[in-house]
């Protein structure tokens, strides 16, 4: 009897040992899920250097879920849903929700210093030393990180205007129902 029990233990021990090695989950899955909700602006307004580090900080309990202005209230709600926490309003210490914008370089003022190119987290600025730079508008996340380094203040943030292709059906007025 004792032998059988010992043998069973041994078998389970081996199975568990193997599964620990073979089915090991790479990285922290909750971090990936949190990161998927974050807007990937990479703006650093949350005080972390990018969306991934902020996701890691949320997962470890170091940061709160309301530090991401570009994600807005929808983002906070989604994070609260995922983590089983109470949703809360955006902490305005980290900035306010702004309309989505893109960076635009006033090209005649650009002196070609490449500082904005180095600051861009998604390599969306094109140019080289002493040559005029320009923003690839499609790739720009609107993080504003290029604005401060510019020594001649030639980068402005322009809100993205609604066009026919981005137009959305409005919700009906809710006065009565």
């Amino acid at each position: 009897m004792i032998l059988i029990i010992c043998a069973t233990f041994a078998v389970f021990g081996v199975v568990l040992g193997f599964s620990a090695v073979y089915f090991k989950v790479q990285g922290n899955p909750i971090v990936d899920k949190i990161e998927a909700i974050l807007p990937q602006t990479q703006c650093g307004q949350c005080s972390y250097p990018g969306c991934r580090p902020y996701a890691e900080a949320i997962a470890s309990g170091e940061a709160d879920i309301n530090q991401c202005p570009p994600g807005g209230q929808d983002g906070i709600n989604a994070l609260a849903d995922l983590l089983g926490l109470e949703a809360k309003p955006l902490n305005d210490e980290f900035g306010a929700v702004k309309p989505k914008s893109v960076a635009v370089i006033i090209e005649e003022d650009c002196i070609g210093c490449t500082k904005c190119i180095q600051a861009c987290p998604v390599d969306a600025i094109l140019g080289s030393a002493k040559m005029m730079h320009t923003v690839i508008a499609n790739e720009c996340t609107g993080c504003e990180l290029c604005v401060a380094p510019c020594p001649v203040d030639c980068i402005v943030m322009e809100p993205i205007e609604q066009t026919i292709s981005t137009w959305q059906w409005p919700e009906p007025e809710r006065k009565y129902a």
Partner: protein
Amino acid sequence: MLNLARFHGGLHLPNNKELSNQAPLRQASIPKKLVYPLMQRPGVTVDPKVQVGERVLRGQVIAHSDHPLATPVHAASSGVIEAIEERLIPHPSGMADVCIVIATDGLDESLVTQGVADFSSQDPASIRTAIKNAGIVGLGGAAFPTAIKLNPGPQRKLDTLLLNGAECEPYITCDDCLMQNQPESVLVGAQILLHSLHIERCIVAIEDHMKRAYARLTQAVAALNDPRIIIVQVPAIYPTGGEKQLIKVVTGKETPSGGIPADIGVLCVNVGTASAVYDAVCKGKPLTERVITVTGRGVKEPQNRYVRIGTPISELIEQCGGYTEHVERLIMGGPMMGFALPDDEIAVVKATNCILAGTAADINIGKQAMPCIRCGDCAKACPVDLLPQQLYWHSRAGNLDKCKEFSLFDCIECGCCEVVCPSHIPLVQYYRSAKSKVIAKAKEAEKAAVAKRRHDMHLERKAKEQAEKAERARLKKEALAKVKQANAEKEGVTQ
């Protein structure tokens, strides 16, 4: 005779078709201006191929693009390109977009074109090319490029061509009128489609009140002596003219959710499209005009006309006697699925089947919405067998995942639920709004994924640069150390 099936729900609506289907089909006169929007579908914009000041002839391509879903735009009369600028376009947003404007010269000179006398000698690919070059899109309202529809891929085996003449929406009679006046071109169009698809069965479905169209079509089929074509009368229940609903009625088969009719072997084409195919293949004429119903109690002489695509609605209304004093609202499309227009300078497009100048008697204006009483009438009326009430709660709460779970994207926005709702809740608008939110969210997620990839690559590049820099520094240090050592040794030797 076929055994007809039924689809779930649907409504018997007062059809108001006698307003416009009594008058004879007439040719509309050449308008002073022709306006062509460059945006064809969301994300598909064609490029102008003409310059301001250039003279164009009827049938000349004025805009095109390489996008697979784009179709060429042809001038509908001769004249001079007056401007390429932003104008209001027929779109539910009521926004403006870039349009080509032609000032017509009244000469109506046309490019010389030639069709093929015997289409049966043509291979399917060249018929499709002819259809594409003629700029033909589905004239039922969705305006999907017909040439693409005709090529559903080798994995889908087609057996039936369904010609949709079941014009179910109230007020609209343009297909009825076309079938009465030109049954031959519709049927020869069907023969061309049968030939290009290699199938042997065509069903022309019309509603049971279209007696004259039925008689004319039956006569024409007898004259053509083509046993492949059958005319079927289907009961007039709104929305029988919906593609998936009509397929269910005629074949008994259900199109899978998220699928297309070709998945179940059916290709459904509007009768107007078939007629346009005939014009394109046999006469070599591109799509520059179509039958449009101008109706409603807000216009003096409701009727159907052959209208040049690009004609401003104001000119069309003028040709139909002008507005009556009770006109309240201008709608493109029918009262159920159409949308209101902010201005009558907007021009008709290929998808325009009806211009409804509505009075208070024609359309429901501003009924107050009351809270939902959970009566469930909407679910009984839904032709797609959805749960409109659940969709309403979830779209109202912005619960988009739940909306998708309840098959929001299967909703055809027919408006049956809204008509039966005793609380007059604007249900369809809730669904449309939820749909656009889902689409916008998907686009954002796509953009975020791209941003993440670029950021990861940026970090990788930075790390690599740093490593290279460190490596260079190390090598330099080593070289320096070597030189120093060598110098030291040299010094040692000399001393």
